[in-house]
């Protein structure tokens, strides 16, 4: 068996920025009329509210669009998506394994909002971006999914090919006061 020796293109952590360990990921798309059926089959209620997330026993479902969700599994397994796929057999939906497409960073601590504000135009204050909010947005020139997991914790998903770029900019922002 091959070793997954390129575990992450990212360096080790710094005080406010830490690579998040391996995560299994899938994109699921279905219409509003099928949300309940699909939710039942995959054991997590897909959120209907825009830019909101749901967490349930190790699974997280992030709303990306009215018919599109990013599902994260904190316990990674190469077979997870094909198992999900089997459970969804017959349901009118589409599921794609994107586990290896992107990587995740945690941006945390009292300066997290300031660090993100160097490259992301959104208002990251807790009032405008509450815990549980998630959105697909831009950090500098790269697309990211930004998800607030705590008052001072953000989970940032970025495509593998853009990861070094985003990480370098975040680290520079972290190093400057």
């Amino acid at each position, binding site marked *: 068996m*091959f070793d997954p020796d390129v575990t992450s293109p990212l360096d080790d952590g710094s005080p406010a920025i830490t690579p998040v360990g391996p995560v299994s990921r899938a994109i699921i798309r279905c219409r509003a009329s099928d949300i309940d059926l699909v939710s039942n089959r995959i054991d997590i209620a897909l959120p209907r509210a825009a830019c909101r997330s749901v967490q349930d026993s190790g699974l997280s479902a992030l709303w990306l669009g009215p018919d599109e969700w990013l599902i994260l599994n904190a316990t990674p397994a190469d077979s997870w998506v094909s198992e999900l796929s089997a459970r969804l057999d017959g349901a009118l939906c589409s599921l*794609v394994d994107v586990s290896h497409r992107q990587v995740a960073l945690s941006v945390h601590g009292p300066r997290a909002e300031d660090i993100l504000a160097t490259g992301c135009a959104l208002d990251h204050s807790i009032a405008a971006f509450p815990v549980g909010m998630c959105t697909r947005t831009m950090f500098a020139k790269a697309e990211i999914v930004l998800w607030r997991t705590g008052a001072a914790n953000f989970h940032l998903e970025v495509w593998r*090919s853009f990861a070094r770029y985003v990480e370098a900019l975040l680290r520079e922002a972290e190093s400057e006061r």
Partner: protein
Amino acid sequence: MSGRRLDAGGRIDRGNRIAFTWGGRTLHGHPGDTLASALMANGISIIGRSFKYHRPRGLIAAGLEEPNGIVQLETGATTVPNVKATQIELYEGLIANSVNVKPGVDFDLMAVNSLFKRFIPAAFYYKTFMWPNWHAFEPSIRKAAGLGKAPGAADPDTYEHRFAHTDVLVVGSGAAGLAAAAAASEAGETVLLVESDSELGGGLLAETAAIDGTEPLAWRDAVLFALRKRSNVTVMNRTMAFGFYDHGLVGLCERLTDHLPPGKRRGPRQRLWKVRAKRVILATGAFERPISFAGNDLPGIMLASAALTYALRFGVAPGRRVLVATNNDSAYHATCALHDAGVEIAAIVDSRSEGSGAAAEATARGIPMIIGGAPIKAKGRRRVKGVTIGHAASGRTLRTMDCDTILMSSGWNPVVHLHSQSGGSLAFDEALGAFLPSKSAQAAVNIGAAAGIFDLDTAIVSGWAAGRGEDVAAPCPIPVGPTRHFANGDTRAAKAWVDYQNDVTAGDVQLAARENFRSVEHLKRYTTLGMASDQGKTSNVTGIHILANLIGARPQAVGTTKFRPPFDPVTIGGFAGRAVGDNLMPLATTAAHASAVAAGAQMENHGSWLRAAFFPRAGEDEHAAVTREVLAVRSSVGLFDASPLGKIEVKGPDAAEFLQRVYVNGVRNLKVGRCRYGLMLSEHGIVYDDGVFARVADNHFLVGTTSGHAAAITDILQEWLQCEWVDLKVLVENVTTAWAVVNVAGPKAREVLAAVGTDIDLSRESFPHMAYREGQVGGVRCRIQRVSFSGELSYEVAVPWQYGRALWDAFMRAGQPHGITPFGVEALMAMRIEKGFLHVGSDTDGTTMPQDVGFGSSMAKKPDDFIGRRSTMTPEGLRPDRRQLVGLEVLDGGDAIETGAHVLAGDGAGPRATQGWVTSSVLSPTLRRPVAMALIERGEARIGETVKVWDVGKSRLARIVEPRFYDPAGERLDV
């Protein structure tokens, strides 16, 4: 030598001395000084030479409206050209020099221009375009143009960007701005208060009148103390609001380290803020207007408000004997304050025929007054020595007076730049003689002097009201008296400066009006009035007055030129921010990047990807390496990193129907487990992309795209699904970086893949050419497509990205017995030219349709519509002489023809029409002769014809052939 440090006063630290260097001389100042105030305190009158005529120039203003005092700050890589001395905070060891001088500011060779002034009027260089010959003047004009020198080395400083959001943004920290911030924050709104200056307070820094019985600065400190206690308030000094854009977006430039000695600077030099504000309160103040009169650019002539600031804020007297020329009351207050600070006042010359109410103050101090008079002509060479005073109404000479300083006040221009940038309108106010903000186009309001409210108490009231979101009081302007307008024929206009920075005189405005440049925008371009870094801060309104008078229009009708961001220059590094060096663009590497580098890969940028171009061994050049790589693939086996190729999952019950509408080719009839080469068009019928698509399952396709187009094609597919074909149940997902891909190619590819280990049957019968299989390789799930761009037996093996490097290394080990050779993009391109395979972007351009590249018949066979189909049937698409893709055999041997070489019609040596050009060309490593592909008029019908190709100055003979040079029957693919 006229300026001097006063014995007392000013907000400088007299206990500490700072040494700095000006033009090679060591001088001294104090903490709290600007470079301008320190130079004035040292008796320096001439700061620079003017832009065009190289006349000696001194300071006009004390703030960022200064047009003359432009210097070159520091040296080497950190040098900053064209920065205003009034904006430079003095620090220990500061080095500054004049700009636009040779050899020095005191003796400047180019001052000879001044003698020729009448031959180089406004727009003289435009006229050289017409007569006698621009090219005769161009070198000297180009050499003479510009002020400071750009640094020659890369900028060692860093710059940062920051986004921010606030309920209320207050621009300007004068009395009105402070009151607005206090009122807005009281109700709990988040408030950001920004001030361009190093010190907060705006006009309060040179104010003598008490506020509610409190000293102005004590009042400021009390408000600031209250503001700083509120957690919803942020106060930023050294932060200039330079642009007001749509939807409440305001650009700020924060200077973080410019005020420190270079050795003590840490961190970013500047931070560029992009602030979204729900409300913007503009407390930007007003600039005083100079008076136009002959010789009004002599050093020692400056704005009355500037002299007041130099005296009260910096403890510097602008001269020893000061004459004040005014047409309004504000200069009286300034004069009295200067007098009280110990400056000798020669006289106040007031152009108004009636005495002013403010005159009592001056009379009480024994200051002489000349009522109804105006300055006509200043005397002096390197500094003003005296002035001729005339009757304001008639211009008749009244008397001359000696003085070393003239202060000017022709009224006030509210700083309406940000208001105007935001889309707000302006209205000319007759009493003020200037433009006032009228309607706002965004949630923005003007207060204080920016709104024409010049009374201090009323300005504070306007701030309180704006802060609370209430209506702001009506303007209370400072009325102005007569201003000289320079009617046609008034020859003194030739030396009466309007725009100091661009060396534009009232005579130039006369010239423009005479030549019928009556629009204010034409006036600006023709004369350069209000151009460059100054953007007419002190000159625009004066210019509009003169033009209006000359053409008999009201200033409101003349209007202003467009106020453009930035309000004041922002260093280009600020806009670049972190987007420099490696951070300019995201740069992607493949999973096996480190292994390729270790194998000696020469990397090249392909879009955002770093890809191996070739793998040179010791002593090999590119050609030798590429030749070796090609021959290895043709004779045994090679390995190529194909990870960047685009991969898009298309899933859903309508996936086949969807792709049937997208591709030129048929899709519906493709069997599961098979692949097909497909062509995509733009809606204009132009070849846009190509690639191989595979049918994974009935309702599941994997679409391959070229590496640069994956994201764009995903977006196009999404757009069609979301906007046009909403009834189709299809999911499109770009998975390019989810899968790492290696391409093993060559006659031994099957043996190597088998040696790596897979559960997929690789036999010719069960896994034929153009088939797709899933299974495991090396214990990891994989997708394999048997497709070939090289013309040899070839497998593209995809595994989840994190296994990509292990996969590459496993192939290199397993292929060792066969001498497996890593190959790069260059070898792949050489092989596909040998095969005559199309490369979109090389063999196609923005006019190429599918019928031009051999897809005419497959299009004709397809019954359904697809994107771009109709556009291929326009008259242009049906033209019989379209250029078609063919092969070219070079008949004279030699090297490859240059790509881009033209195929020329007929014989003869002279210029003649092209019939097409070479699109791809290589000296074939396999065939050992030059082969090429070309788009040639009616090419398909001309197979066999010999043509002449113009190849970088040589005519070469070539024959048009089918574009299949190597293995034309494709036998090597079917093994």
